[in-house]
């Protein structure tokens, strides 16, 4: 409802996914006819062209149509997406879902203006018609030349050994059942368990008017387990999930056991939880998922579309000191097999490690093609989109803080009364005022330098620039979150991740009760 405003949602996938499904390999039959097309992992550019039933000549014709009204840039984003989910409830693997989508998005840029259209019917006529729609953003007699296409070779930030299309539903069912049995075996108070397993395969073919053509194979998998426990008439529910651009070998017994244990422990601890006091207090953020702080407090505000429009609280702060010199924050598309890893961004640019804050100084926004041109800088590889149905926007990938000089123990010992925040479900930010929130599912009170009683279900709210200034200690124990984070903006969700060492913020407002 609020997506048209400068409000960014950040949702973690729940215990049960609702889209996805069963293996449908023969949807591909008849599409691939290129030589050597035995495994999707070894497909070459020609296989992708065959897959989508297009030639380089057709692509160049469509691009020319897109530029026919005087636009200065055009790109085509072909995508074939296959989602599968298998889920367990009430001790049975009794549901499965699949979704297949196929189409091409056509974008024309004229200055900072964008025309966008897509078609699910990949024929020359349909593509040209969509290109004419997108072309209407421009009205100039200028004619950009369509450059001849040359293949861009991509790095391999998510090499996997077995494609998900070759893992049958029969191979997945036993490990869902194993998870269920494991969870129930860990604690007799567990009364319900849900397990869901999703995988996604995305075939992408990209081409633009600057002569780039590239293809990418993007895998993703997520395992989520949630459970309900009952104790003395009280019920609590929680869960744990792991997601990344991994293949089936990731889900070995050690990982399954670990995920089951995390789900049970994070649920059982809630029975002892108390409410913290309401108001401002020191907050210690555990290493790992508390990178959500960075995502909300600074990441969204550094997306350059907000800044080129003067809407962000960070719009006038590049080059300024915004944090202690031991604070460095990056957004990185290259972390191997991470949810936020991409081999190129969705507008054909290289990805890299982008320093937003370098030793306390605000260094770089996160750019898409339009904003990079606006600021006269190199693109940072942050132009991302949910699917062929959406136009790219500046988006985060994997956002994390580098290690600092302190130790976890000394950070906790430094707090007289505050909270230790450990796991999170969602966050949000208002770009202009800079107030951001994140929801702590579970953590602890810190009293007199020691972690004491557990806490649950408290929202934390702060102001981005002020909280950056109030980061007073950073430990040396960085961890990446393995949660299935999906970042929402402008009605589009993209997979992202985050990480952080243990961090102390000297004061921030914690939702709680008034004495």
């Amino acid at each position, binding site marked *: 409802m609020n997506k048209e405003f400068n409000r960014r949602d950040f949702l973690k996938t729940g215990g049960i996914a609702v889209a996805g499904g069963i293996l449908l390999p023969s949807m591909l039959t008849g599409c691939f006819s290129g030589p050597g097309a035995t495994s999707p992992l070894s497909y070459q550019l020609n296989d992708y062209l065959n897959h989508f039933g297009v030639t380089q000549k057709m692509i160049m014709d469509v691009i020319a149509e897109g530029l026919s009204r005087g636009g200065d840039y055009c790109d085509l984003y072909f995508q074939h997406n296959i989602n599968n989910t298998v889920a367990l409830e009430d001790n049975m693997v009794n549901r499965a879902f699949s979704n297949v989508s196929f189409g091409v998005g056509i974008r024309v840029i004229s200055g900072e*203006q964008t025309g966008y259209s897509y078609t699910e019917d990949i024929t020359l006529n349909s593509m040209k018609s969509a290109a004419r729609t997108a072309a209407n953003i421009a009205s100039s007699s200028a004619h950009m030349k369509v450059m001849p296409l040359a293949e861009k070779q991509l790095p391999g930030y998510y090499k996997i050994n077995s494609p998900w299309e070759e893992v049958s539903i029969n191979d997945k069912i036993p490990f869902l059942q194993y998870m269920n049995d494991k969870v129930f075996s860990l604690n007799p108070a567990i009364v319900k368990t849900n397990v869901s397993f999703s995988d996604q395969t995305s075939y992408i073919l990209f081409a633009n008017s600057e002569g780039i053509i590239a293809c990418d194979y993007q895998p993703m998998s997520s395992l989520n387990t949630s459970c309900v426990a009952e104790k003395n008439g009280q019920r609590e529910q929680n869960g744990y999930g792991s997601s990344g651009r991994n293949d089936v070998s990731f889900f070995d017994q050690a990982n399954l056991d670990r995920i089951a244990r995390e789900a049970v422990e994070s649920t059982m601890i809630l029975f002892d939880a108390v409410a913290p006091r*309401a108001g401002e207090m020191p907050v210690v953020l555990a290493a790992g998922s508390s990178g959500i702080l960075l995502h909300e407090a600074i990441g969204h505000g550094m997306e350059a579309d907000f800044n080129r429009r003067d809407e962000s609280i960070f719009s006038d702060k590049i080059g300024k000191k915004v944090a202690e010199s031991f604070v460095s924050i990056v957004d990185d598309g290259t972390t191997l097999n991470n949810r936020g890893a991409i081999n190129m961004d969705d507008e054909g640019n290289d990805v890299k490690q982008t320093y937003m804050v370098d030793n306390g100084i605000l260094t770089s926004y996160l750019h898409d093609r339009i904003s990079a041109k606006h600021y006269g800088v190199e693109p940072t590889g942050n132009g991302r989109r949910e699917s062929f149905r959406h136009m790219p926007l500046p988006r985060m990938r994997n956002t994390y803080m580098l290690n600092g000089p302190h130790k976890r123990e000394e950070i906790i010992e430094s707090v007289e009364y505050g909270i230790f925040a450990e796991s999170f479900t969602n966050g949000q930010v208002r770009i202009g005022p800079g*107030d951001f929130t*994140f929801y702590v599912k579970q953590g602890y009170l810190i009293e007199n330098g020691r972690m004491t009683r557990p806490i649950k279900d408290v929202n934390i709210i702060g102001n981005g620039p002020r909280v950056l200034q109030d980061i007073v200690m950073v430990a040396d124990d960085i961890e990446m979150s393995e949660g299935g984070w999906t970042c929402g903006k402008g009605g589009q969700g993209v997979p992202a991740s985050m990480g952080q060492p243990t961090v102390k913020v000297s004061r921030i*407002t914690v*939702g709680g009760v*008034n004495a």
Partner: protein
Amino acid sequence: MNNKERMELAQWASNFAIKKGATEAAVAISRSRSVQVEVREQKLETIRESTENSLSLQIYRNNKYSGHSTNNLNKHQLETFISEAVEATQYLSPDEDRVLPDPSLYPEDMSKNLELVDPGYAEVSPEFRVQTAMETEQLLRQGHPDILSATARFNDNTGEGVRVHSNGFAGEWANTYFGTSASVSIMDKGARPSGGFWAGQRFLENLPKSDEVAQKALEDTIKQLGQEKIASGRYTMILDNRIAAGLLFRLFQPMSARNIQQKNSFLDGMLGKSIGSEHLTIIDDPLIVGGMASRHFDNEGIASQKRTLIEKGVLNSYLIDNYYGRKLGMTPNGGSTSNILMAYGNRNQEQIIRAQNKAILVTSFNGGNANSTTGDFSFGISGQLIENGRIVKAVNEMNISGNFKNLWNQLIETGNDPYPYSSAQTPTMVFSGVDFSGL
């Protein structure tokens, strides 16, 4: 493809699934076309146009169940798609509650015209969309000297589709939608508060005009100037009618049959009991003429009917879909809500504000969450502090926290001002003694 052709394709797909070994099948086919324009600085920032097709299929094979969707409606490709869906379903565990709804739950009469299609939709021109957004954006820019950025949008959508079940249901639907919105950022001593306004309607003529949209977006932003957090404490909370649905909808998840059956609801065992104050009456009415969420049947083909979900604080009904209804031994009544109405009070927001000694008017939520198992909640907010019947200060960066078991009992008044531009026509609501955390 029109709905008649979609119906034929859906019948064929259902029959084909049965032929391939499904015991029962449900098929829904739809098409949606949408256009959106966005204007900044009197220039088109974006135009977006698209048409999306979808076929979704539910397979029941000897009480084994799976669901599938695709945007490829080519019959030849669908044969493969359906064959594999039926094939894959056999590997799942059987579950006796996995069957289509009993035909007695399907609508008997769908002849009432719900008037969801604006007959003038086809005549809405590209120029009109752009001109509307241009006008709104210009009015926004003229509205305040310190505007940093102003954006106006106009979007519309037309959709139609069919649903076919192999045990005797066939229904179709069609609707149009028009939306207009505006957002503004204003420089305010380093902070850049942004606000806005949006509205949606099925008929273009009911949509607010550019001057109203611009005016309301400006008001929403200007009233945020100077915002800061204030002392933590218990305050009376006045919840703006425009955002009240955000809180109300948090009640629907714990009311769902799935949450009840999965022991994941603080409302388990509360049917027929009081869960809120006498001011809390919630009505779900899917048959309102021209309603934003009106429909003859839901996404399981179950007949729409008006129902009072909560009456004077007493929980009358869960939201019961077919599968979990069977699990719970309850008659399915539709697992999702449609148009939401409430019992309305006697005063408007202005009158309510004038009557407060000290209160916080909450005009925006900022993140937060609620726990449907326990009822615990904690949300970020911004709004205005009210003292002696007057708005005295803008506040932000605060949380409200508590438990829904208490909060809905603290509802002491509803306004007479249902929000007209949404499927949830929530009024201004007043809650006593809410925990706010700030300084």
